[in-house]
């Protein structure tokens, strides 16, 4: 039984998608004019979007199999292949990555003034690495992309970040390092346990052979890497610092794609390869997720920095994502995947907007704002839409994701579902309070139209940067099936894979093993 469909198009579409940004980065080496660098990068990111687009068009939604597969032996003696392909879980992230990359270039047009060339090279390499992570079907390849992704991110925060950028960078670096090391160990162990293969699909189909003891420790090793990335409570504290210090483009990529890697890892590795351990850890992870939802929301009430508040709200929102995924039922998992996409759209757009307003006011302190609805009405209106998407109002994408997750969670565990639902009250609380302090009440006299720093409303470039994301806010809100349809077959397959293993008296074995440990 072959779980792959070789590339159905006449050219290597996935390789082009992944490596086109690298070509762009190479080309940038020969360009020195800042304007030309920006236009070239923009051209490459836009081109990459169009190169990747046929993936959506030609994707076969009726199968869970990997599609557009390219498989070439690479290091045959170790069984390593250049092996890429996508399924219903990864395709939407490829799409999201290509869109957000374009927007990141646009939003950096004026705000990045130093080392312009280096910045754009970093953005392009980062894009390639992220796409590579989502497309890889070989562990070796995956790990290379996974690590390659960190370096440009690390530079983007460390070089173009805010005042505390070094602290934030080192923190980000160390957290991810610990996770990565443990994941590497896990991969090596899997390589031996699976009979000297790094083929992700082969390993996914082999789960029945992995004894619970092995799964248990492997799960923890992968969990370390993925939980830090998500980030889950209590390993989330790098995120607010990284977000706050990162330049706008960095925050957008971080929120939009990078932190999705952790959840993606759960879906691609932990669940299919280690289903018994996944089921064993389901309860504790759901509990941690609910804690993250409530805790992340409560911390938001105490924030005084605009950007930091949104960063903490990500902790809460990602809590929903992991809650959905580990509900281990169709609605939970699909809701979780959709919510990852939604969070990328909503929070990505919020960071874009915060970056835009920061360029005018040079402050992120909430108390410095006030009355902005009167000063920048279009900006205020768009931010209002994001606010309500973030609190999950029906007709926005946030509702669809949250509702499916809540449904899945409630189905899996009623009490946790109830606790998770308190997030809708807390979320409305901190977001509306934030909105009130920024946009309502009396205007800060410094920024009045007659003051010494009059703020201007959005210009055309900024509107163009934002509009695509708003289209998706409502598209997913009114007709989510366009996106859910891509997932159905793959998610269904994933759930089945996990259900299959529940046989053969595993429960007894698990209990016995747990007794041994403690």
């Amino acid at each position, binding site marked *: 039984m072959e779980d792959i469909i070789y590339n159905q198009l006449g050219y290597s579409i996935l390789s082009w998608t992944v490596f086109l940004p690298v070509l762009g980065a190479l080309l940038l080496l020969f360009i020195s004019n800042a304007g030309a660098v920006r236009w070239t990068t923009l051209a490459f990111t836009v081109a990459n979007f169009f190169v990747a687009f046929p993936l959506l068009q030609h994707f076969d939604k009726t199968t869970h199999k990997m599609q557009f597969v390219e498989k070439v032996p690479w290091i045959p003696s170790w069984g390593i292949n250049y092996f890429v392909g996508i399924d219903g879980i990864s395709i939407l992230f490829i799409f999201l990555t290509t869109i957000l990359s374009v927007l990141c270039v646009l939003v950096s047009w004026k705000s990045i003034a130093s080392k312009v060339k280096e910045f754009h090279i970093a953005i392009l390499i980062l894009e390639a690495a992220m796409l590579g992570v989502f497309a890889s079907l070989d562990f070796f390849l995956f790990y290379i992309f996974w690590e390659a992704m960190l370096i440009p991110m690390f530079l983007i925060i460390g070089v173009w970040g805010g005042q505390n950028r070094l602290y934030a960078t080192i*923190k980000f670096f160390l957290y991810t390092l610990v996770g990565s090391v443990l994941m590497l160990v896990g991969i090596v162990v899997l390589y031996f346990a699976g009979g000297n293969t790094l083929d992700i699909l082969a390993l996914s189909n082999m789960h029945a052979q992995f004894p619970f003891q092995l799964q248990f420790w492997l799960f923890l090793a992968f969990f370390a890497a993925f939980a830090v990335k998500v980030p889950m409570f209590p390993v989330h504290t790098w995120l607010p610092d990284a977000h706050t210090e990162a330049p706008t483009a960095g925050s957008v990529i971080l929120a939009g794609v990078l932190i999705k890697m952790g959840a993606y890892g759960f879906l691609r590795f932990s669940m299919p390869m280690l289903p018994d351990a996944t089921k064993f850890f389901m309860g504790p992870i759901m509990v941690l997720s609910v804690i993250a939802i409530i805790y992340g929301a409560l911390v938001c009430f105490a924030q005084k920095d605009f950007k930091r508040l949104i960063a903490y709200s990500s902790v809460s929102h990602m809590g929903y994502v992991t809650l959905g995924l580990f509900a281990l039922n169709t609605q939970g998992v699909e809701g979780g995947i959709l919510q990852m996409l939604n969070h990328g759209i909503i929070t990505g757009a919020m960071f874009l907007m915060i970056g835009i307003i920061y360029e005018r006011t040079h402050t992120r302190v909430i108390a410095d704002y006030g009355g902005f609805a009167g000063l920048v009405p279009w900006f205020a209106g768009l931010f209002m839409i994001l606010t309500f998407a973030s609190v999950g*109002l029906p007709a926005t994408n946030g509702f669809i994701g949250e509702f499916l997750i809540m449904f899945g969670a409630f189905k899996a565990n009623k009490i946790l579902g109830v606790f998770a639902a308190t997030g809708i009250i807390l979320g409305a609380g901190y977001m509306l309070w934030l909105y009130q302090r920024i946009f*309502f*009440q009396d205007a800060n006299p410094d920024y009045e139209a007659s003051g010494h720093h009059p703020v201007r409303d959005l210009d055309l470039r900024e509107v163009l940067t934002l509009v695509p994301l708003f289209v998706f806010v409502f598209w997913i809100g009114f007709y989510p099936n366009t996106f859910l349809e891509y997932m159905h077959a793959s998610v269904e397959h994933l759930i089945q894979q996990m259900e299959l293993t529940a046989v053969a008296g595993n429960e007894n074995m698990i209990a016995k093993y747990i007794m041994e440990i403690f």
Partner: protein
Amino acid sequence: MLKYTLIPLLPFISFLINILFGRNYIKDKAHWIAVPAVAGSFILAVSAFFDVLGGHDVNVNIYSWIVSGDFNVSVGFLIDQLSAIMLIVVTSISTLIFIYSIGYMHGDPGYYRFFAYLSLFVFSMLMLVMGNNFLVMYFGWEAVGLCSYFLIGFWFHKKSASDAGKKAFIVNRFGDFGFGLGVILIYLTFGSLEFMQVFDKAGSIAGQTINILGNDVNLITLICLLLFCGAVGKSAQLPLHVWLPDAMEGPTPVSALIHAATMVTAGVFMVARCNPLFSMSPVAMNTVAITGGLTAIFAATIALVQNDIKRVIAYSTVSQLGYMFLALGVGAYSAGIFHLYTHAYFKALLFLGSGSVIHALHHAGHHDEQNMQKMGGLKKYMPITYKVFILATLSITGIPFFSGFFSKDEILWRAYQGGDLGKFLWLLAALAALLTAFYSWRLIFLTFHGTFRGSHEHEHHIHESPPVITVPLMFLAFGAVFAGYVGIPPIFLEHGDRIGEFLAPVLGHPAGHGTHAEEIFVILVSIAVAVLGWMVAYNMYIKNTGLPQKLQDRFAPVHKLLFNKYYIDELYSKTLVQPMLKASDKIILGFDTYIIEGIVNGVPNLIGAFGRKFREVQTGMLSNYALVMAIGAVCIVGIWVFLK
């Protein structure tokens, strides 16, 4: 089909046009788009009403909204007797209020925005009413809440206004928390969210229980109570009533449309819609009835002593909504909807009338324009407003042959028939009716009678509002007087209860048993309390004007308690809001900063100390990174291989 889709779609198009082009192009001509749109919806709604009258119900899915595994929900419409009546109420009152707003909001810098939000509201409310499943209803439910938030905080520069908007939204979320869980539980129980499918299957789960933390809870009761949470929030019942009085920060047409006639009645509509579920659970029914009865009397007592003209009417609304729930709770669903329908007219009229007064005083330069203690004697300056106000008051206090009499009396009579609990609730409701009569007439006497208590300068400038305001008032006055004639008690007229019979296919016939003598007794009591309240108010505010102050001094603690609304806002602030904010600031943030950060920074510090040894031979971060990673990996693999 297109016809039904257009009913909500027209206001939505008006919203889109106004919000996108209002600021730069349409500006003060926004009503030229909004009014025709909503009037168009009204005409289509009337046509839909006659379709239903002719026996053509509609239950159709438009498109598939969310599909995930075995979860499948569509966007669809259900137009039956219940939604047809709601459609008429919503679109007719909206049309009048849109016209009124042309005059009331004239010259406001946010004129286009006002009509945009108002149009969005009408769209949302129509979706709520027309939805054929719980999720579409939930969509409308949340969307009307959003519009309410926008419109309460319409004058967003005022802190009090933006506070009130935020409060309304968040308090409502407490209710929606239950509503949302109820919707999920319904799907898990019935495998569908469509009203008709759920109600058809409702009988099959009678007596089933669900285990929650070791307790067996009756499933249908749990579902109903969760749904009712939503109704309590949206319809401002105890204990979630606190947002509605504050919502009066919004422009008066908003108070009339959203916070009196339509949105706040959504909870009543929802419970009535779900009557097949509620009827199966005596516990849920009693909860609804008791909540309604208590709220009716509770809010009425607060209204006795308030001085802000709009707040008096706001508490009156909370109280009247209590009556509606009382009716639903005793199984008289059609009586509840009947009162919803008559209340929409007379309460909208009261609000718009007070808006006319506020508008006139504001334009006369009066700064305390909502304080009744600073009014008085306005009847000679504003005769039309005065007359319609009198008609609305006669209606709300239940004077025979005005709308309110018929609907309120039916509720009282149904309650009276409802056993011991019913009798008790009837007593509460009758007492509340006495209070209603008192505060309603107090409002009239303080505002329109006596002498003007503002400055002479202002008095000269007071004049009647323009026709664009007074004409809608007259239309509403017509409704306030005659709307009730569709529900004449059978004791007076065979088949007089036309509305009850019309609604019977959806809401059923209330199982009442009482003698004619009892019914006459209940009616006489209603009339007696209405007249008594009127006389007491007349005595205190016309004949013996020093009396209120004497009573206030004599019963100072009681007055203070009522005037401060039983201190419930303060209670919530002290026990919920403040502790949460303090906890998040002191405990949670401290925990995040010191405990978690301390632990995780401790580990890197260790690594850092370890790394310092290597610093001399290392050249930079990246190689350091690679080395640490490699060493770590080798060590751990080594350990694993060794253990194996």
